[in-house]
C-alpha cells in the first residue's frame, strides 16, 4: 500500500522533470555538435591533405622532398627553397611587426589620451578588414618600386617586399589581442607598482607587459599564423621564383604561393606534390600551436 503511494508521488514528481530533461539533452547535443564542427573540419582537412599528398611524398621520398633544392615538375620535387622563404618572410614580419604592434597596444591601453585612442583604434581595426589582394596591390605599386629605388636593384619583387607587407598585415591581429590582454589585467598591478614609486613607463614595461605575457604570446602566435598562411599578397609582391633565395633582395616563393600558383593546372604527381606542400605547411602550424601551448603552460595570472 505504502509503496504504491510512493510510486504515485514519484511519478507525479518526475513528470515535469522529464520535459526538462529533453530540453537539457537537446541543448547539450546542440552545443556538442557546434563544438564538433571545428574538430571535424580539422580532421577532414587533415585526412584529405594527407590522402592527396602522400603519393607524391612516397614517390619523391620524404628527405628528397623536404631537402631538395630544385622544383622541376614532373621530374624533381624539392621544396626546401619554399620552406626557407616561408620561414624567412614570417620571421622578418614578426621582427618588424610585433614590436610595433606591442608598442601600439601599450599606447592604446595605457598612454594615449581618449580622443587619440579613438582615432588610432578604428584605424587599426580597419586595417584588419582590408582584403589581402588590396595589400598585395599596395605592395606592388608602392613598396616594390620603393625598394627598387632605395636599393638600386632591377626588380623590387623580393623577400623584403613580402616581409614589409606581412608586417603590416599582422599588425591588427597582434595589436587588438595584446591591447585586450593588457586591459584585462586587474588594476591592482598598476596601482601597486605606482604606489611603490615606479614611474608610469617603468610600471608598464616591468609589470604590465610581463603580466600580460600569455595574451601577448597568443597574439604573436596568431600573427605568425596569419603571416605563414598569407597567399595572395605574397604572390603579388615576392616574385615567386622557385630558386633558393641568396639574400633578402631576391625573389622567392613561399609554400602557400607554390600551392596557389600551380594548383589550377597541375595533374597527377604534380598535384599530389602540391598537397604534400600543404602537409608541410600543416606541420608548421601544428608546431607553432604546440610551442604556444608549451610557452603558455603556466598562466601569468
Amino acid at each position, binding site marked *: 500500500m505504502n509503496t504504491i503511494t510512493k510510486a504515485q508521488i514519484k511519478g507525479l514528481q518526475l513528470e515535469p522533470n522529464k520535459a526538462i530533461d529533453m530540453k537539457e539533452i537537446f541543448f547539450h547535443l546542440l552545443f556538442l555538435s557546434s563544438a564538433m564542427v571545428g574538430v571535424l573540419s580539422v580532421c577532414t582537412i587533415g585526412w584529405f591533405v594527407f590522402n592527396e599528398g602522400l603519393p607524391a611524398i612516397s614517390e619523391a621520398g620524404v628527405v628528397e622532398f623536404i631537402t631538395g633544392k630544385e*622544383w622541376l*615538375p614532373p621530374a*624533381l620535387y624539392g621544396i626546401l627553397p619554399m620552406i626557407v622563404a616561408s620561414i624567412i618572410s614570417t620571421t622578418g614580419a614578426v621582427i618588424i611587426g610585433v614590436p610595433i604592434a606591442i608598442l601600439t597596444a601599450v599606447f592604446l591601453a595605457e598612454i594615449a589620451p581618449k580622443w587619440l585612442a579613438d582615432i588610432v583604434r578604428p584605424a587599426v581595426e580597419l586595417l584588419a578588414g582590408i582584403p589581402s589582394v588590396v595589400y598585395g596591390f599596395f605592395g606592388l605599386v608602392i613598396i616594390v618600386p620603393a625598394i627598387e629605388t632605395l636599393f638600386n636593384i632591377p626588380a623590387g619583387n623580393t623577400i623584403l617586399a613580402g616581409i614589409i607587407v606581412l608586417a603590416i598585415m599582422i599588425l591588427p591581429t597582434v595589436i587588438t589581442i595584446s591591447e585586450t590582454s593588457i586591459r584585462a589585467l586587474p588594476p591592482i598591478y598598476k596601482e601597486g607598482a605606482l604606489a611603490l614609486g615606479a614611474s608610469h613607463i617603468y610600471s608598464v614595461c616591468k609589470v604590465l607587459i610581463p603580466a600580460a605575457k600569455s595574451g601577448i604570446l597568443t597574439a604573436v602566435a596568431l600573427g605568425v599564423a596569419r603571416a605563414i598562411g598569407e597567399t595572395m599578397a605574397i604572390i603579388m609582391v615576392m616574385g*615567386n621564383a622557385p630558386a633558393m633565395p641568396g639574400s633578402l633582395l631576391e625573389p622567392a616563393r613561399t609554400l602557400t604561393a607554390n600551392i596557389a600558383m*600551380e594548383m589550377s*593546372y597541375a595533374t597527377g604527381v604534380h598535384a599530389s606534390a602540391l598537397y604534400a606542400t600543404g602537409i608541410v605547411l600543416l606541420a608548421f602550424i601544428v608546431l607553432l600551436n604546440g610551442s604556444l601551448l608549451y610557452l603558455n603552460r603556466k598562466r601569468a595570472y
Partner: protein
Amino acid sequence: MKKVIGLLTAVGLLTAPLANAETVTVSGSTSVAHVMEVLAENYQNKAQKSVEVQSTGSSAGIRAAKEGTSMLGMSSRNIKDNELNSEIKEVVIARDGIAAAVNKANPVKDLTQQQISKIYRGEITNWSEVSGEARPIVVVTRENGSGTRGAFEEIMDLQRTVNGHKVTAITPTAQVGNGNGMIKTIVANNPYAIGYISLGSVDDSLQALSVNGVAASDENIAAGDYHIARPFILLVNNKPHPSAQSFVDFIMSNDGQSIIAEQGYIRVQ
C-alpha cells in the same frame, strides 16, 4: 534515385552502340584538345551528335589520323612531310600566338628568337648584351603547367630532360606571375622586365617585341612570318566520314571560329 540511375544506365547501354557509328573521334595534341573540348561541347548541344576528344600529344594524333584509329587528328606543330601521306590533308583551324613584351620605356624593340631563348635560359642577363641599357634583365615567366608557358617553352626550345622527364629550361631565378594580367602588371611597372603573354592580351600598357624583325600581329602570324606562334592543325581524311566532315564544317564556321577566339586563340576565317 537508384531506379533513375539504373534506367539511365540501361538507356545509355541501349543507345551506346547506335551512337558509336556516329561519334566523331578526335585525338592528338593536348593544347588543341583544350579548345577542341569546348568546340565539341557546343557542337553536341547544337547538332546532338557526340564527339570524343582524347589528348594524346601531337605525334600520336598525326599517327592516329594516318592509321584511321581516330577520324580526326590534332597537332599543335607543323607536320613534317614524311609524316603525311596522300590520304590525309591538313586543315588549320586556329593559331596560337605569344608576344614577348617589355616595358614601354625600354629602348629595345627587336630581338632574335635566339636572344629571347638565351635570356630565358639565363645566359643573357644584361640588357647591354642585346644593345639596350647596361641594366640587369628581369625575367618574368608564367607558372608551371600554364598552356602559354608550355607553348613558349616548346617554340623557344626551352626544355631539357631530367630523370627521363621533360622539364623547363627557364632559369629558376625568373620571377613567376600567375596569369596574363599579373605578367602585364609586372612588365608595365618595371622598365627592365621582359615577359611573355598570349597575343590577344597585349595592350597599350607594354610593348610587344618584334622577333627576328617581324612585328607580333595577327597578320604576320597568319602569314607564318612571326615565329613565336603555332598552328592548331586538324588532320582530316580525304574521304572523311560524313559526321566528321560536318564537325570540321562547324569548326570552320563563324560559330566555331568565334569559340576559338573566345578561348584566346587567333581565328583563321
